[in-house]
């Protein structure tokens, strides 16, 4: 669909704002609505829009498969690591109170990293599923 001038220009205008909105939802989730899950989906949606307009091969160059797959696992690991850090600092698993002083500050810190993990995993999974579905009909996977 890259021949449609209007679509191309509008997409180029929209995608940065979608990305910024995703980051806003991610980092402002403590204060307003949203959080890691929504942010991951919105970020993935912006990439999907890019893929629909500019084609899948171009998108795969921008965000290669290995990066997506790494993110897919990295988010869960990040989440689990936050829990382990809690143990190392003398608390229970996923205990955020020990992450900072005063304890409420540690809570904020823990929630931030946990949401980060959720966001990364959701972004990776959504994008990976889209890649798999969209790439399937075109050519046999070369891996």
């Amino acid at each position, binding site marked *: 669909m890259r021949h449609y001038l209007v679509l191309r220009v509008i997409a180029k205008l929209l995608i940065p704002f979608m990305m910024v909105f995703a980051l806003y*939802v991610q980092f402002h*989730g*403590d*204060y*307003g*609505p*949203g*959080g890691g*899950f*929504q942010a991951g*989906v*919105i970020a*993935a*949606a912006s990439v*999907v829009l890019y893929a*629909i307009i500019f084609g899948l091969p171009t998108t795969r160059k921008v965000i290669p498969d290995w990066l997506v*797959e790494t993110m*897919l*696992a990295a*988010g*869960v690991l990040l*989440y*689990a690591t936050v*829990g382990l850090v809690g143990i190392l600092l003398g608390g229970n698993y*996923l205990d*955020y109170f020990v992450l900072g002083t005063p304890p*409420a*500050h540690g*809570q*904020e810190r*823990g*929630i931030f990293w*946990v*949401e980060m*993990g*959720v966001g990364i*995993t*959701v972004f*990776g*999974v*959504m994008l*990976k*599923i*889209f890649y*798999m*579905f*969209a790439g*399937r*009909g075109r050519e*046999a*996977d070369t*891996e």
Partner: protein
Amino acid sequence: MAFAVVAIAVQRNLFAVVILSGIYSFLMATVLVALDAVDVAMTEASVGAGISTVLLLGALYLCGGEEAKPMWRVGLPLLLAVVTGGVLVYGTLGLPAFSDPEAPIHQHVAKRYIEEGERETGVPNIVTAVLASYRGYDTLGETMVVFTAGVGVIALLRRRRRPRGEGK
């Protein structure tokens, strides 16, 4: 919404069904906003109407856009659906009235979350506080589920395309 549901059930063209379910998701999101569940509405709008519509269209591209004529009669499934729906509606009669502050669910831990949540976690958004802090294990489990879904899709779809006729 009722119109969208009936249209989804009647429609044979799957492209129209996908678009209608996207519309349904957007309507659902507005309902959730009206219920003051902004976080859920956001999820519904982005996942239900956004990503899943795209994924369904992608699946449609792979398997064709017309639903086959059903080989069975509609009588028994319809009866089953109506009976199940009736039982569920009957079940709701026993629930406390909507937004009743004396309902049992508001007497248990919800009170603590609302009254102490901001002081204990320093996060004004109660949804985030409950999700990431009080219910941290659950959210870890959910993230694992999402991860597993992704891995499952990779495991199922990443293989060389077989010759036609062999099946999937």
